[in-house]
């Protein structure tokens, strides 16, 4: 490839700085505060499925475009891991790196979206009372459980749960990418180390995730690997029919990146 010219380099740098300023300067300001606990009631008529997932277990199923998955952390279990695949082509799946890189932040909350590896939106965070989620470290593993609970503890982990959940759809280890952890208040400190903020796990928090295409979902109700050794507690799932997004839908319009991501998604689904 020929070397870039000084004019090309200058133009590309200027464009990058403009995008960065828009994304890290203005975009967070348009995002609303966390959802109030009583602000998003679900009408009984809209409910498609209610399911309680015991501590340590997984749930997997299909969620159609426009349906909404509520994950209710009823009792304050420290972390719920999630993966999503395009039902029509599971080689398209959640991509944690693209999700945080595209949105210029690892701090996902109401108004943000989860991207696939194909530049399309899988899920929108349409309601969120918590705002404390982990997009970097991911779920527990056999090794992390052994470190925390000792050998042969029988404590279940997210990695094996995902192998089981994916397996129920004919998918295998190669189909399991890094995941996202909800209700997992982690941060990167100034010295580069991860920190866990136990006060950020609050019973009764929920997130509502709107499917933007037909999806295979896998949820692992296993504590985040940075959480202290605790007995995992049940979570409650409510899958319900969402309202059709308005023209000014928050998740579709909050950032220029979201607008372009939905443009890609809509083009794909209309083909």
């Amino acid at each position: 490839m020929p070397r870039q010219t000084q004019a090309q380099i200058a133009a590309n740098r200027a464009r990058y700085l403009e995008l960065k300023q828009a994304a890290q300067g203005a975009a967070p300001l348009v995002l609303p505060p966390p959802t109030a606990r009583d602000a998003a009631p679900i009408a009984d008529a809209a409910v498609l499925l209610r399911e309680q997932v015991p501590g340590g277990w997984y749930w997997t199923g299909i969620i159609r475009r426009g349906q909404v998955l509520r994950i209710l952390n009823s009792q304050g279990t420290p972390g719920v891991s999630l993966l999503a695949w395009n039902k029509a082509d599971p080689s398209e799946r959640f991509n944690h790196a693209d999700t945080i890189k595209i949105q210029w932040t690892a701090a996902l909350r109401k108004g943000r979206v989860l991207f696939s590896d194909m530049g399309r939106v899988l899920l929108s965070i349409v309601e969120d009372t918590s705002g404390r989620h982990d997009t970097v470290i991911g779920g527990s593993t056999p090794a992390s459980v052994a470190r925390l609970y000792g050998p042969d503890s029988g404590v279940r982990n997210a990695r094996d749960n995902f192998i089981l959940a994916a397996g129920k759809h004919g998918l295998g280890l190669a189909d399991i990418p890094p995941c996202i952890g909800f209700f997992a208040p982690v941060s990167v400190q100034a010295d580069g180390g991860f920190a866990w903020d136990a006060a950020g796990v609050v019973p009764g928090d929920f997130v509502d995730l709107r499917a933007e295409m037909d999806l295979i979902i896998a949820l692992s109700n296993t504590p985040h690997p940075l959480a202290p050794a605790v007995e995992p507690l049940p979570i409650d799932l409510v899958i319900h029919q969402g309202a059709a997004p308005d023209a000014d839908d928050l998740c579709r319009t909050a950032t220029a990146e979201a607008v372009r991501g939905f443009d890609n998604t809509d083009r794909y689904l209309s083909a």
Partner: protein
Amino acid sequence: MTSSFTPVLSPRDPASAHFRETVPATYPWSGFVKKGQVIRIIDSEGCQAVDTLFYSTADHTERYSAQDTVLAQGTPYIGPGSVLYSNRGQVMAELVADTCGQHDTSAGACSCESNTVRFGQHTRYMHACRENFLIAVSRHGMTKRDIVPNINFFMNVPFDSEGGLAIADGVSAPGAYVELVARMDLLCVISNCPQVNNPCNAFDPTPIEILVWEG
């Protein structure tokens, strides 16, 4: 981190390497690094992101895992002494030399598709790392399913206290290198990043060099 980074130099002599190859700007590379062998990646001209994945040669479903790696070491940043883990919790490789100190485990590889979201539809038909990865893994019988978020050597992606992150100007000087010793038989897959829309390559991709020594 830059402020406290002390370069760790390699005692190995390039003349004794049994493999030495230049990877042209924007091109893929793949090769085998057996257990105990050492691979050096040289950022020949400086500020060049090198997107890198590792697979177990015995079973390609065992591969580099960003999340296992950052969990095990308690930080998203890697440097001298960092250990890279697989999705089966096994040690794949260890950084034994590093003269740069800034590498990324979080931002993954660029793709034609994500470029359209990040930079606009006009970037759809520009070469990207995941195009390189697909070509490289296809030579070893693998597909898109086998491609996961990778390590970016020499790429500077700091997190701020609010969780914000951005690809910042690189800090690797011309000739900066990392060396990894393989702790299992590895297939190493590299994209010499072609991105010109952000600072990961100083907006001007350049060649890199790969050396491998017997352990």
